[in-house]
């Protein structure tokens, strides 16, 4: 039986217990009312203490369940509650996930820097070739218009020879740089795998947490505890990072054009 199945059976059990508990509560209350109306206060007080007992029993049962769920969830999180803190860190998949993500940041950063190194190395080569080609073309046109002296022609011949040599070497270098840039994109494969592992873990943790919250909700129901949940106000000044599913969110712009439209509507 999978964890999910166990949880579902557990849910059915608790549902039944809760119904049972509520039914008992209803019956005992009716009984109490009739005793109070009949003026039998000794019997009524006895019933009040029975009511308390029923509530306590329900409460103990739910707290017991909650504790068990908490334990199961912890087991599912793969956190070993051993005494050795170092061992704990090693055995926790959460910390393993953090390590994986840190490694992803490392890999992407290295790849981006490697790519930029190679681009920065290639750009001046392209710029040099362009400058030289431009100047040679001017000279070449002069030759076509027969405006060169024999000496200038000899210079142009040598310069053209050097340029063609350079061109061979430098285009080889640019080609090598481009191939290396291509290889540097290999990080995507590794980071993809690492992130998928972490995503799976996050999903598992979320499922377990939701189960715990449901359990805790039942305890609240029996004890009659009500929480004033105050959602923290979001400070617009605090950035939240890239927004997802921009096309589906009316509060998020989906392109630079949207930004420009919004700003121009504000008088920019």
């Amino acid at each position: 039986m999978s964890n999910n199945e166990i949880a579902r059976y557990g849910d059915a059990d608790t549902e039944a217990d809760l119904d049972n508990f509520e039914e008992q509560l209803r019956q005992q209350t009716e009984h109490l009312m009739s005793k109070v109306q009949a003026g039998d206060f000794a019997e009524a007080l006895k019933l009040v203490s029975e009511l308390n007992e029923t509530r306590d029993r329900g409460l103990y049962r739910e707290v017991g369940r909650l504790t068990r769920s908490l334990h199961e969830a912890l087991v599912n999180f793969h956190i070993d509650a051993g005494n050795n803190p170092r061992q704990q860190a090693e055995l926790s998949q959460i910390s393993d996930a953090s390590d994986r993500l840190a490694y992803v940041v490392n890999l992407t950063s290295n790849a981006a820097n490697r790519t930029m190194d190679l681009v920065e190395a290639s750009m001046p080569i392209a710029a040099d070739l362009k400058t030289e080609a431009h100047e040679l073309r001017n000279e070449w046109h002069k030759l076509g218009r027969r405006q060169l002296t024999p000496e200038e022609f000899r210079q142009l011949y040598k310069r053209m020879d050097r340029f063609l040599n350079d061109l061979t070497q430098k285009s080889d270098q640019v080609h090598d740089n481009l191939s290396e840039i291509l290889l540097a994109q290999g990080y995507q494969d590794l980071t993809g795998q690492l992130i998928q592992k972490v995503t799976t873990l996050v999903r598992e943790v979320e499922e377990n947490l939701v189960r715990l919250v449901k359990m805790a909700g039942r305890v609240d129901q029996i004890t009659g505890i009500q929480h004033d949940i105050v959602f923290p106000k979001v400070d617009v000044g605090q950035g939240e990072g890239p927004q997802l599913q921009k096309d589906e969110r009316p509060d998020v712009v989906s392109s630079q054009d949207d930004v420009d439209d919004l700003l121009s509507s504000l008088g920019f």
Partner: protein
Amino acid sequence: MKAGKCSAKYWVSSVGILEVALDKNMKILVVDDFSTMRRILKNLLRDLGFSNVEEADDGTTALPMLKTGKFQFLITDWNMPGMSGFDLLKAVRADNALKNLPVLMVTAEAKRDQIVAAAQAGVNGYVVKPFTAAVLKEKIEKIFERIDA
């Protein structure tokens, strides 16, 4: 040169279009917590002819640099540990010596509320990541066009 003043000149080009000549020597501060993004911005700026560029990794390090008065233009990310770009923008606008400094925000923050807040805080331009070299160029030119107009 005072911050944010006279960084561009106009002339009517041969085809009669009003063009803007940016002061390519102006000192620019690029603020982003990711070194790769700083490097990309520096490269793009160099392609646009701006080579006088310095970097900072968040508002806390950027503000004292700006207070030296050496910079004529600030390009900042929004979401950074320490002091965010938005807080940096507000600090710049609150400082008498810096309040006219042109600020371009280059950020992944794309919520309408945030863009409106940045505009109200006095940002001069807003570019959402990922962006292109053409968009960056256009926004920088627009900022200095407006300032000199």
